[in-house]
């Protein structure tokens, strides 16, 4: 699996040169926050309201920015057909998939961390909880495991920019619901006991989808 890491490192190197993915995801996420703070300007005066809204606002930012990221996840591979060269390298296709997932999760976590900081500035509300970090990581793993698979899937179809979010969102219900509910519970001051069941569903989803997607990824990149 060392090759999966090589692929992730290679993607980081490309990102370091091109800087298109991270910048656009961050800016997009920031813009959504701004739109929300304008839309909810009357509600943001009390921190009780923010505790109610916060989970939804943050996860919408994460989902939109993530979807933007997935639409580019395979861009470097398809630009000059590099995926064809990767396919005939001496490794299992699962390595390609995992490499992409590792890279996507890392990029998303960076974007999410900055989004949370911006959120606390714009909404004047600080969330510093290790539980919140666990929920975000769990949600991001599930999100990326499906997102990378679908990103590879839409590469060869027409109107892929439109198809990706449409395909992605119905499959994300089982990750979004526990993630949003747990986040909202944490915002309202819940402890580990209150979110254990949510976390369990979240990580079951992560494992099931990583496993299923690893198995079927081979069929997606075949052509």
């Amino acid at each position, binding site marked *: 699996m060392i*090759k999966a890491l*090589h692929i992730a490192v*290679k993607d980081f*190197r*490309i990102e370091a*040169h*091109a800087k298109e993915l991270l910048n656009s995801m961050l800016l997009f996420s920031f813009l959504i926050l701004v739109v929300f703070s304008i839309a909810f300007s009357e509600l943001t005066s009390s921190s009780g309201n923010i505790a109610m809204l916060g989970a939804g606002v943050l996860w919408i930012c994460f989902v939109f920015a993530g979807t933007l990221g997935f639409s580019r996840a395979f861009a*470097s591979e398809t*630009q*000059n*057909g*590099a995926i*064809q*060269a*990767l*396919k*005939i*390298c*001496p*490794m*299992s296709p699962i390595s390609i998939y995992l490499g992409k997932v590792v890279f996507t999760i890392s990029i998303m976590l960076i974007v999410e961390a900055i989004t949370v900081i911006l959120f606390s500035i714009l909404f004047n509300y600080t969330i510093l909880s290790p539980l919140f970090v666990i929920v975000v990581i769990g949600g991001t793993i599930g999100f990326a495991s499906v997102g990378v698979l679908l990103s590879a899937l839409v590469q060869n179809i027409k109107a892929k920019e439109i198809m990706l979010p449409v395909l992605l969102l119905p499959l994300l219900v089982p990750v979004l619901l526990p993630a949003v509910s747990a986040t909202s519970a944490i915002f309202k001051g819940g402890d580990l006991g209150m979110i254990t069941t949510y976390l369990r569903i979240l990580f079951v989803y992560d494992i099931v989808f990583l496993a299923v997607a690893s198995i079927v990824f081979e069929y997606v990149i*075949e*052509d």
Partner: protein
Amino acid sequence: MMNNLIVAKSIAKKYGRIIAVDNVDLCVKDGEFVAITGPNGAGKSTLLKLLSSSLHPSDGEVLINGVSFSDDRIDIRKEFGVLSHESYLYDDLNAIENLRFFGNMYDMKGIQLEEQIKMLLGETGLWKRATDRVSTFSRGMKQRLSFARALIHDPKVLFLDEPFSGLDPGASKIIEQLLIKKSSTTRLLVTHNIEFAISICDRILVMDAGRLVADFESKDESVRETISQICGIDACV
């Protein structure tokens, strides 16, 4: 005694009703330079993809150096490299980073990899541009770097899928020279350029509608006539 390095046993590839490759038997000897030619849509590229394990055949099996893909799909891939009309490179990485990445994919590392990169960049005349991003390269330079990429792990077999398409005469000449020099490597070239195939290859295979319809030594006098019968006059120009 030269042994058969690539053996295809009645391989076929079907896409629903469409039969792309139909029951092809093929043997290629160690060190041979074989051209595969034929009209568009004859299944040449699909055949090459089947031989390079990037497609599963619907039927039959492929053996490289005596090992079947159905037994080993991982390590056997170290035996061959692919050079296509697409460069398979990352535009946002420089030449060395590209080669280093693909070297890593072939389990190469450290000094051995760096030496190999230096050697290949020297051979392809790209040493001066080694730290420039590939997006700044011309088409010809990309193709030379792609040649280096295909040979990074020193494969026994080189699969070539129309490597000259889109290149100007000068750039194709360079690739051509590089190919001729690799005389110890078994080379399998898919091309439309029949004159070129006749001048540098040892053997010419002709495909039509998914089947292998002719197999010549390139010195054979009847090559041109047969090919123009199969492919139409235009193909020979």
